Every structure is written in structure tokens, then in C-alpha cells.
């Protein structure tokens, strides 16, 4: 049974581990790109061992990122694991060819025996546009057109299609075949209400990337999504959240090491995107009340339980890597996330189900026939 339908079926909260393919260090030495690729496969195995539900990788095209060929990475992880789901977060659909993407993910799904899914997004990083010859001005149009084609390839047997950004298809049937109806595909959003409505309109589950600020502000998006699903006559679908974090034995340990590696990354991004560089004060605020899930297992579990209720989540993904974060720190964080945080969050929610129970119960109604995510 697939991850996202499984959640809905037994009302069980899912925990995902997400990597952006950040190059790691090993005892102070920067690992090679190739070593970092192999580390990802080991971490996918570890994620399965510690009981996490899904392992996903992003798609980036810059130095110190090794996740440029997502399906290739996932195929290797698929062969190395047996129960964990495998996904993306996010696939930059705007600069991919939906035909090639279908073929690649149908292959990963075959290798994994049906454990593969996708999160499709417009991406917040734009390196792929010039690299593959796309015009950033067409950001929105590219995504909409390619989403339309990709969904039709997944949902129809033979596809006749024409659009502006790729060659038309005339009765094309691709192979290898995905299972009938395709594989689960989520829409990744960064905060745009338009994207929330789009996910509902297409009947796709919602993945909210919350990487800064108070995460509760996305409760409005969750609300909008659920209302939009009703408006479009769609059944209720799962809502997930993706956020950055690190778990260590104590809050202080976690914050000290995370700040050391998070700061240069965010300073760099702030330069590129023109926002204020991070300060220690802002960082502390971000950890206390913002979107950083950094701390001891108990601290992070409480924080996740809170946001699961507030944002009506049925899945929480932790982005655990950061440029040059030591591999042993990554490993410890993954272990604690799977072995301590996930069970503790479930325990906390069991004590006081609150809003979360609502999502769990209602999504359970929509899996009749096992087609929830493609309803």
C-alpha cells in the first residue's frame, strides 16, 4: 500500500525524511560529490531501519548539491530498501519534460515495487531555468502546462495533447507503464494561495514548504485548501508540511551545531535573494516559535505535535541535511527522528487528538478503491 493512501486509511501520521543532496563532511573533511551520493543511499536505508515512512530528495543544480538526477538516486534507494516510500521534494516540473519524467518515475516505481511518489513544484531556486533553456518569465505558465500533461500521462492510457512548451503528442502510450491512475503526486507550495487552489483543482494532496516564520500562519492555507476541495467537488486529501531541523540529545547541542551550519547557508541565500542576513537573535526566535525544528527529541516532538494540530497535517517531513553538516550529526538526527520523535509525536497526539483527528477521520473516507490521491 502506498504511503499517502496508507495514512488516510489508518489515520496514522506519517514522518518523512528529506534531503536536498547537500554535501556532507566526515571528521572535518568535505566529502566528494560521489561520496555524498552514496551517503544518501545509506541514509535512506537508515530511515527505513528507524521506522520512518518516506525518504525524499530534492532537485538542485548547484555546487555542493548532488541531487540533480533525482530518479537515479531514488532508483538506487529503492533497490537498497524494502518498505519505505520514496519521493521527491520537490521535482522542478517547470524545467522537466513530463514525458521523460513519467518514464523515469515509472521505472523507479517498478524497481521499488510500488513505493514511489512525487511532490511537484515550481521550485524556489531558479538555477534550472537558464541551465535547460527556459525563460523564468514563463515560470507560472510552464508549471501549469506541464502539470496538465503529466497528470494526463498518469491518468490516461493513450494521450493526445498539444501545448506551447513541448512537442504535441498524438495517441502516445508511454512505457514502462505506471500502475493505472499513476503514482501519488503532491503539489508543493511555498505560500502562494494560487498554488493551494491549483492543488485542490487538480485533486492533488498538498505539501506546504515552511522554511521560516511562524508555521501556524499556514493554517489559513490548509483551511483554503480544504474549502477549495469542497468547491471543486473533490474528496478531502492529505496535507503535509516540510520544514528544516536537527535533533540532538539536548536542545543546546542541537542549536549550537545547527546554527553553525545553518547560518552560512542562509547568509548566502539572503545575499542572492535580497533579504536580511540571519542573526543569533532571529535564529533563537525561529527555533522557539518559528519553522526550525531544532532541539532534543522531546522539544521537537512537542513542536511537531503542535503544528500537526494547527495545520491539520497527516504528514511531516524533516529536511535534515545542510551544506557540510557532519555525517555523524546527520545520522544521529535521523535516528532520533525515527526512534524518539515520531513515536513521541504519535503519543502526544493520542493523548489529545484535537484537530488532527478530524483530518485523519475525514481522509479515511476517501480511500475506497485505493485511489484517494487521484480522485
Amino acid at each position, binding site marked *: 500500500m502506498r504511503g499517502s493512501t496508507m495514512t488516510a486509511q489508518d489515520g496514522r501520521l506519517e514522518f518523512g525524511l528529506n534531503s536536498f543532496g547537500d554535501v556532507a563532511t566526515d571528521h572535518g573533511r568535505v566529502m566528494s*560529490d560521489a561520496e555524498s551520493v552514496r551517503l544518501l543511499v545509506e541514509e535512506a536505508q537508515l530511515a527505513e531501519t528507524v521506522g520512518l515512512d518516506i525518504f525524499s530528495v530534492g532537485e538542485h543544480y548547484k555546487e555542493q548539491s548532488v541531487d540533480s*538526477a533525482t*530518479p537515479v538516486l531514488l532508483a*538506487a534507494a529503492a533497490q537498497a530498501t524494502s518498505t519505505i516510500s520514496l519521493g521527491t521534494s520537490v521535482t522542478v516540473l517547470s524545467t522537466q519534460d513530463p514525458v*521523460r519524467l513519467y*518514464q523515469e518515475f515509472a*521505472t523507479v516505481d517498478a524497481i521499488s515495487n510500488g513505493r514511489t511518489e512525487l511532490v511537484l513544484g515550481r521550485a524556489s531556486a531558479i538555477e534550472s531555468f537558464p541551465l535547460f533553456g527556459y525563460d523564468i518569465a514563463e515560470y507560472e505558465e510552464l508549471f501549469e502546462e506541464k502539470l496538465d500533461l503529466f497528470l494526463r500521462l498518469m491518468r490516461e492510457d493513450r494521450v493526445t495533447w498539444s501545448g506551447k512548451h513541448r*512537442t504535441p503528442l498524438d495517441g502516445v*502510450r*508511454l512505457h514502462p507503464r505506471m500502475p493505472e491512475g499513476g503514482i501519488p503526486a503532491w503539489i508543493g507550495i511555498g505560500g502562494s494561495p494560487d498554488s493551494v487552489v491549483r492543488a485542490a483543482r487538480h485533486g492533488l494532496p498538498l505539501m506546504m514548504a515552511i522554511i521560516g516564520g511562524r508555521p501556524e500562519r499556514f493554517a489559513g492555507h490548509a483551511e483554503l485548501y480544504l474549502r477549495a476541495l469542497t468547491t471543486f467537488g473533490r474528496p478531502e486529501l492529505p496535507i503535509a508540511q516540510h520544514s528544516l531541523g536537527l535533533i540532538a540529545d539536548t536542545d543546546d547541542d542541537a542549536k549550537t551545531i545547527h546554527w553553525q551550519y545553518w547560518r552560512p547557508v542562509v547568509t548566502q541565500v539572503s545575499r542572492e535573494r535580497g533579504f536580511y542576513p540571519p542573526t543569533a537573535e532571529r535564529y533563537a526566535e525561529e527555533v522557539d516559535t518559528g519553522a526550525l525544528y531544532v532541539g532534543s527529541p522531546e522539544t521537537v516532538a512537542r513542536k511537531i505535535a503542535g503544528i500537526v494540530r494547527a495545520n491539520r497535517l497527516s504528514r511531516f517531513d524533516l529536511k535534515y541535511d545542510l551544506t557540510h553538516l557532519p555525517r555523524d550529526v546527520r545520522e544521529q538526527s535521523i535516528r532520533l527522528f525515527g526512534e524518539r520523535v515520531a513515536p513521541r509525536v504519535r503519543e502526544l497526539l493520542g493523548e489529545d487528538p484535537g484537530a488532527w483527528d478530524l483530518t485523519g477521520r475525514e481522509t479515511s473516507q476517501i480511500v475506497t478503491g485505493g485511489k484517494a490521491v487521484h480522485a
Partner: protein
Amino acid sequence: MPDTTHEQHKEHPVNDFSDLEFGIDTFGDLPRDDEGALLSYGAAIRATLAEAVLADDLGIDAIAVGEHHRPEFAISTPETVLAGIATATERIRLGSGVTVLSSDDPVRVFQRFATVDALSNGRAEVILGRGSFTESFPLFGYDLSDYELLFDEKIDLFHKLLDEKPVTWEGTTRAALHDADVFPKTDSGRLRTWVGVGGTPQSVIRTAQYGLRLMLAIIGGAPARFAPYVDLYRRATEQLGTTAYPVGMHSPGLIAATDDEAKELFYPSYKVIRDRIGALRGWPPLQRSEFEGDVEHGSLYVGSPETVARKMADAIRALDVGRFDLIYTAGGALPASARLRAVELYGTRVIPMVRELLAETPAPRAMTGAAFRR
């Protein structure tokens, strides 16, 4: 393992074929189960993985998987399949056979293969080709009338990407690149890269010009007729001052316990696929006598281990190649068990026998340049 072999200078007056490599190739044909039912695409991909694992266990040097966009074949994205194989194996080289570069993006091809190379600890090998099938052109929006131009430009760009340094490039078949750095980088610093050639002298010369390895696709006729291409490659590398790598060849076949069993397994489903493809290319339907002739004198390596080994040894000697790949699924919708058995016989019986046969009668090496390197 990183490709360092070409650094070593060996100037044998005779070729004892001691460093000969053997591979298996598949297009991901859909096999049948024991009841004769065609396997699903997913099951066909998993069957290929199982065959690769067996080949690795048996010490076969390489596996190559093709890229096809036709319903008979389960593999349309070779690197994704190779990534699965990478995780499940330890020694075997992982290649494409071939990557249809003309209808792909060289940047993406590099990224995918560099990732396979990382996953496999340096065992990836790219085999670039123009493809003998044309389905990928309309599918990905390329014009067949640009067949030459597409390959010319894309191999030029790919060749630049192989240096693993920022690339500046301009052409008409893809967006220009300005100082674009592409990741991940490989540990060895260079992907082992071949060009699959079907019989165009120009392609042979281009391969030599870019300093890439030459893989001859010999799917019909007597193998010896390709000897001029091997010679051309060596002469071209000498004149251009590039490295003359050992030449590879790949040809179709099937091994079973006896000649009769192999032929009876192979022929019926081979005729089906051969006639289907032939209809598109204007070939007359395959006759049994033509098939028998190809098994006897041509390029079908179908038979008992001994028959196939003798035939391979003859071809390897005639062409002085350093690598032989058997397309073991060329028989089309074969029983999955027969495919697995063919891989087993290839690894346990055929390869040792070929080595023995070649060691018995070393061939004079057709050396044309002092810089002939293994």
C-alpha cells in the same frame, strides 16, 4: 573502479587477449513466464535487475541496458535501471546500450551518469549513439531531418562536459551555456565514455577525434567485414594524437544446453520482433534459412556454450577487439528462465572457453601506432 587502465602502456607484439572484457546487453525486452504469458513492464525491469545480479556474481565484466521507446521494451530510461543495479552489485560495469544522445539533453545525460557513477563507486560507462530506432525523435520533439546535426552538436557538448569544468557552449539544438558548472562531479574526474557505431566511417573518425571509446554494433553479416572500422579508428587516433582504446563489439545471441535447444528457443520470438522491425525498415520477412546462415556465418551467437564460444573467439580474433558484449535478450519475448540460464552459461562456460581458445592461438596484433594503449 576509476578508469586508469589507459594510463598504462603495454606494447605487446602479439595480443594474448588477457585483458579482454565481456559484457551482456539488453534492451529490456518483455520476457514471458513459464506459462508463456508476457511479463508486465515492472516485472521485466525487475527481471533485468536479477540478471545483472547474477552476471555480477559470475564475474561478467559489464552490463549495458538500452534506451527504447517502443512497446516491446521496458527500458526507456537506462540510468534509472542502472542505479538499481548499482546498489545490488559490486563489480560489474554499468552502461547504456545506447543512450540516444540526439534526442536527449547532454547536460541531463551527464548528471544522470555521474550519479550512477557515484552510486556504483565508479563503475558507470556511457555508450552514446544516434540510435537505430527513430521513435524518440517525434516523442521528444526533434526533427529526423536534423539527425546528423543533433548528434554532432550534442556529442560536442557532452565531450566538453566530460572535463567536469565550467562549460561555455553555443549551438542550435539546445540553449547556450555560459560558464555553466554541472554536478555531481565524479571521483575519477572522467566518465568512461564510448560511442556506439553501426557502420558509418564518419562516426568512427569522430569517436577517435574526441578521444572516446569505440563500440561496434554488429547485428548482421560476417563480423570480419567490420575490420576496416577497427583499422580506421586506430589510424585516426594515431593521426589525431588521441588515445586508441581497445575497441568493443556487441552482437545478439542466446546460449542454451545444446545448439538445437538454443535455436528453438530463440527463433520463433526473434522472427516476430525482427519482422515487426523489418516491416518499418523495408526488410523482407525473416526466413529460417537466413537465420541458420546468420547463426553459421553471420552475427547471431546462438547455440551451445561451445558453439557460441568458438564463434566469439573467431570474431574477437578477426576484429582484434578488447570487449565483447552479448545482447542476450535479442530473441524478443523469451522465457525469463531461458534468459537467466543464458547469462549463467555465458559466465560459467562461454567466457572461460573463449579465453582458453584465444590463449591457444594468440593473434598478431594489428598495431598501427606506437601509442596503442590498453
